[in-house]
């Protein structure tokens, strides 16, 4: 019996300890790789006394993680702005932003406003903009200079030397390249299904051209660096990183328009360190800190003067990929309506299974 009580008290003690350890000043941050560099964390901890625990992830996994705990386990998360309202509607995993605690002057007003509009659910704002970027084409210009649009990936001249992901950005990029407007059809299931059917047929036909569907950022960078793949659909940062090693490879904004995303700050519904979370938001939006994040993540931020200390190389690569017309042509992701993923998923499954 003595042993049993011993076990019981130990369990209690361990539970109690883990509860206190997670409380108070620990900020559990669920974010993307590169968004919380070590030097920024060190400066933040020295200034505020909070400690930061970083978990890196991606959009889908962030939502899945928060869904599994009903919005617990993390104090601040950074999903893309188009994935917030549907997740809130379905799973209720976030809590609204208290704008009085945010230093709004540090945000570029147009981005703050656009993100607020896209992340409003039942009258409350759930997201603040942080890092933005695009996906488009990463091309080895010496070997595949003709690839200037998504559908060019299906051209015979690059057969077997092409890679893209089997995910929703591919569907949307191809749709734009085929002259369709998927974002306008987001709320019209019938029209969206019709668009998906056309894209599905195109992607099945294109399958023979594809070397492999890539999954992770490192995988596609390896494929491009080794020359096994000469043109791919990927993020702008990946292209710019490769450009640093090999001047022939760079990011190309497709004719149909690069797809623009904004990663946000959201508060998980059961986060326990809101103070630390707001402190972090206000800290990283300072121009010099935002520049440090841009230098590690490779993408620019929504901070006013956030490019002040960004390296000249990165600025040059950004300007090389985007002229004003390409910037104006960026297709920004609108909020994804709940249930859209199921339609897209079925199309992607059929593409994957087709021979």
């Amino acid at each position, binding site marked *: 019996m003595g042993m049993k009580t011993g076990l019981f008290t130990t369990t209690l003690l361990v539970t109690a300890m883990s509860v206190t350890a997670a409380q108070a000043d620990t900020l559990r941050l669920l974010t993307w790789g590169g968004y919380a560099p070590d030097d920024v964390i060190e400066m933040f901890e020295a200034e505020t006394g909070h400690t930061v625990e970083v978990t890196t992830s991606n959009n889908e996994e962030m939502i*899945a993680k928060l869904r599994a705990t009903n919005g617990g386990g993390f104090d601040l998360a950074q999903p893309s702005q188009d994935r917030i309202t549907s997740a809130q509607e*379905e799973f209720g995993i976030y809590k609204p932003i208290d704008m009085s605690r945010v230093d709004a002057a540090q945000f570029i007003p147009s981005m703050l406003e656009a993100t607020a509009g896209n992340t409003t659910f039942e009258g409350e704002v759930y997201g603040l903009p942080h890092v933005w970027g695009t996906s488009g084409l990463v091309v080895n210009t010496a070997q595949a200079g003709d690839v200037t649009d998504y559908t060019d990936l299906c051209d015979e001249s690059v057969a077997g030397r092409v890679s893209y992901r089997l995910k929703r950005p591919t569907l949307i990029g191809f749709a734009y390249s085929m002259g369709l407007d998927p974002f306008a059809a987001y709320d019209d299931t019938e029209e969206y299904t019709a668009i998906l059917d056309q894209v599905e047929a195109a992607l099945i036909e294109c399958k023979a051209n594809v070397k492999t569907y890539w999954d992770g950022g490192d995988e596609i960078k390896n494929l491009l660096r080794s020359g096994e793949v000469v043109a791919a659909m990927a993020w702008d940062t990946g292209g710019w990183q490769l450009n640093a090693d090999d001047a022939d490879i760079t990011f190309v904004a497709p004719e149909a328009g690069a797809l623009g995303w904004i990663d946000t700050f959201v508060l998980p519904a059961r986060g326990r360190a809101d103070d630390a979370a707001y402190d972090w938001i206000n800290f990283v939006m300072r121009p010099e800190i935002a520049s440090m994040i841009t230098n590690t993540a490779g993408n620019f931020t929504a901070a006013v003067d956030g490019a002040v200390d960004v390296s000249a190389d990165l600025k040059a690569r950004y300007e090389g990929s985007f002229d004003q017309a390409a910037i104006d042509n960026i297709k920004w992701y609108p909020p994804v309506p709940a*249930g859209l*993923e199921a339609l897209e998923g079925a199309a992607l499954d059929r593409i994957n299974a087709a021979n």
Partner: protein
Amino acid sequence: MTSDKSKLGFYLLLAPLLLWLVVLIILPHIGLFFVSISEKVGVREYETGLGNYAVFFNEPLYWRTFARTAIMSISTTALTLILGFPIAYYIAKMTRGRTKTTLFLMCLIPFWVSELVRTFGWMILLRETGIISNALQSIGLISGPVEFLYNDAAIMVGLVYTSILFMIVPLVTTLDSLDDSMIEAGYDLGGNGVSILREIIIPHAMPGIVSGCIVVFMLSLGNYLTPILLGGKDSLWFTGLIYTQFITRFNWELGSAFGFLLLALSSGIVFLGLKLSRQTLTETMGR
């Protein structure tokens, strides 16, 4: 009094196992089962029903992927057995003392690094600009680079490599227990290598073969990393489908149903395998 004490001891010793089973296996499965029988009808609206299971049987993609996964896992198991048996026999019967330990250790060494690193190792070997392709070009066997990665053969190589240890260990154990004099007696009675293998060695090693096969089959069927990383654009694997349903589709209901179907169907295949090889689970696991 003593019997009371020994009873308490028995339950205390049993407690970790029971806790493990109940908390980590049975409870999550009950939860998963309830998720799998709830059908989504709208935002935050669910109904109880078997619709998710029906999806599996109505959509050819899903059951074909399962069949593909099962067939490839069975082939992997057979290949692992064919490759593992001679190695196990050599370790158990042809070597003594230090050599034996060394050989056994050599089988173990690859498992000191994680599965992810091992799989990346295979990617470095097999890719178009990889070591094998380059080596074959430099000795003049092929004229241009050849892609060995991103196909089903690459998956099989990876799976066999990942699971061969789990075949060798039970085989060595059972073969160790076979008295050498039995083999000698077989030769004295006029048997040759083949008949001795068939009449003496394999029947004796059967429990080891069966338990090795069960473990390798289950490991291959439930593997996620190797098929995803080494497989190509047509290489669907059932665990990959489950992951997609849970993570990218937010469809936990269908994912849970797939999980249960994987459990049921794989248990069915193992049961069938035991029946065909005329072994029982108690005999296999009891040795």
